[in-house]
């Protein structure tokens, strides 16, 4: 008896859908076992991290607010990934987007209102897009790998953040703590009454439909998919792969910038050194767990947001560190990438007729 991997003629739809779910379940199972082995109530920890945020109604708003940036960033990243463009620097584009938004807010002083807020968000989109345009330029002009350049620009963005909040943008009434002054109320996004759910959450729910229409129904979406599947085919089809690289990187950066602007204008209302919270990196997991599908990103964004909120709950209830949630998130990515093989290959058990002599 031996195991053989056989290439499928078509990627398996069933596997495409079931493997992400299996990855989440397997992560939970391994979590229970590992926690029990180190002497923590594993079942309770896993229930707290994966289910409690859904069951306790006052946590729904936290899940929604955390899911929004993950979904928005993942939508942009998955479009690039479809074209085989690997933007790893969404975290940096997210930070720069928020900084551009903050710059506009500071420039307007205490003046707020609809147009100022709109301008702040537009600045976030533009800033994120421009930050991602740098790897696009390096890639198309000098063939520099965008994985490295986009990742390294993330660290540059942290330095820019540190310089601005610790220097020119420091709150004059903040006793020297490196942070900007809080936004005026008229400069913030509207929120649902008695909650923290801001307008950006609603937009995060609408955007997957927009991206689905673009990817499935527009010529641009078709071009992205063709370039992603084969550059030679794209050239024969008359598609310019350089243009696709530019477009997908800038869209990915713009989405990350949008998420950063929403986080700043809708949630935090000030910039400090704690602003880079890892959404840009976690969104990579969201994109893959969502199978690079806009609606998949929506669901996966909620799953990952649940683990964030659940990780915080487990801190108080079972006293495990918050970073445990990060371990679970990484495990999910690991399983989803590993299970990719089941989408493209099938496992065959072959009864060996002879003794297995090699």
């Amino acid at each position: 008896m031996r195991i053989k991997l056989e290439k499928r003629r078509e990627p398996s739809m069933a596997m495409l859908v079931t493997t992400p779910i299996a990855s989440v379940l397997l992560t939970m199972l391994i979590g229970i076992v590992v926690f029990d082995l180190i002497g923590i109530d594993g079942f309770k920890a896993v229930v707290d991290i994966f289910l409690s945020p859904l069951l306790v109604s006052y946590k729904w708003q936290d899940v929604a607010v955390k899911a929004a940036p993950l979904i928005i960033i993942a939508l942009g990243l998955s479009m690039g990934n479809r074209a085989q463009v690997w933007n790893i620097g969404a975290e940096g584009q997210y930070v720069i987007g928020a900084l551009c938004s903050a710059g506009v807010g500071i420039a307007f002083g205490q003046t707020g209102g609809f147009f100022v807020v709109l301008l702040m968000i537009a600045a976030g989109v533009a800033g994120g897009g421009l930050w991602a345009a740098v790897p696009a330029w390096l890639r198309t002009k000098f063939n520099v790998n965008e994985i490295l350049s986009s990742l390294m620009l993330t660290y540059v963005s942290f330095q820019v953040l540190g310089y601005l909040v610790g220097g020119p943008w420091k709150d004059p009434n903040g006793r020297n703590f490196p942070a900007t002054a809080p936004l005026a109320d008229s400069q913030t996004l509207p929120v649902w009454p008695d909650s923290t759910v801001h307008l950006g959450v609603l937009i995060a729910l609408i955007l997957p439909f927009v991206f689905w229409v673009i990817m499935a129904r527009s010529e641009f979406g078709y071009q992205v998919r063709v370039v992603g599947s084969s550059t030679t085919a794209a050239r024969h089809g008359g598609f310019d792969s350089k243009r696709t690289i530019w477009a997908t990187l800038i869209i990915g950066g713009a989405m990350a910038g949008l998420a950063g602007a929403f986080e700043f204008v809708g949630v935090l209302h000030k910039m400090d050194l704690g602003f880079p919270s890892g959404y840009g990196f976690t969104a990579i997991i969201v994109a893959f767990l969502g199978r690079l599908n806009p609606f998949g990103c929506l669901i996966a964004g909620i799953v990952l947001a649940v683990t964030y909120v659940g990780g915080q709950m487990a801190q108080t209830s079972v006293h495990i560190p918050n970073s445990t949630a990060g371990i679970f998130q990484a495990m999910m990515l690991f399983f989803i990438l590993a299970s990719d093989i089941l989408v493209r290959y099938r496992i065959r058990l072959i009864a060996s007729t002879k003794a297995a002599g090699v």
Partner: protein
Amino acid sequence: MTMISRRTLFKGAGAATLATLASPAFAEDKVKVGFIFLGPIGDYGWTWAHNKGREALVSELGDKIETIYVENVAEDASAIPVLRDLAQQGCKLIFTTSFGYMDQTLEVAAEFPDVKFEHCTGYKRADNVATYNSRFHEGRAVLGTIAGKMSKTGVLGYLGSFKIPEVVLGVNSFALSAQKQNPAAIVKVLMIDSWFDPPKEAAATETLINLGCDLVTTHTDSPAPLQILEQKGLFGFGQGADMSAFAPNAHLTAIEDIWGPYYIDRAKAILEGTWTSTDTWDGMVDGEVVISPYSAAVTADAAAAADIVKAGYMDGSFNIFTGPIYDQDGVERVKAGEVMGLGDLAVMDWFVKGVESAA
């Protein structure tokens, strides 16, 4: 059909979770007191000391109160859901134990007017938000005195976190005290933009040593700098707690933060219904700032000079912030004979003469 079965599955799971959430440890009659901590309780410094205070509270009032604590809470927006969570779990009193929780504390306090909050080292208060702090600079004066006596090069290192008044005060107190022993002493300051980051603390300590410092004191929370000093055969001090176990030779003494009495007082006030929003700034004489025993390496004359400073703070006859005090540019900021009040100290944002810093 699948919908129904999925729903029932969730219901079952829901009942199970709610049952575990309402665990018997949280008995109804006890008053819950919450704490959020910046680092791990095992940092052997700042957070460790606050947790000692929490333990003192439990051993004193454990029959009437219970505590819930959360470690490693970042000084950013992620503190908000943690605070909300503690309030939702029924805490009546919540201590937020680092400067960077200030705005988050006020924000959540506004949502829960019935819950009392206590913010450590901050300056913004509300009807249900009190602030408390320690006069750590009194302890820094003792350390500075020892440093001034013991440094051979007269170049002292100061590893700081952020250039906020709490830290600036400590630097100035240390520098002025060292200069009283050695008028030529200078203090090189490095800020690492973090309270607790052992690798960064260690690297910054190495930098200070390379700049010629033969003694380094810290306003960050881990023992990592002391371990570097131990390796190099140089001296330093513990921060927040006695850290001699980590660096038996390098550790001269430490400033120990004793929070227990304050936590007990405030919890009693909740139980008796007498809690009000106050601003408390206790020091050595209140037993909140304590100097650890000197190590064998502390010379007799350094110990004697340090004891004089300590005694002066205990009987109120000494204050290091007595003029004349000059700033880095040599401008006289406090006239001879004048003493800076706590109000002035709370907003101090300039370094004294002899302090060398990048910013």
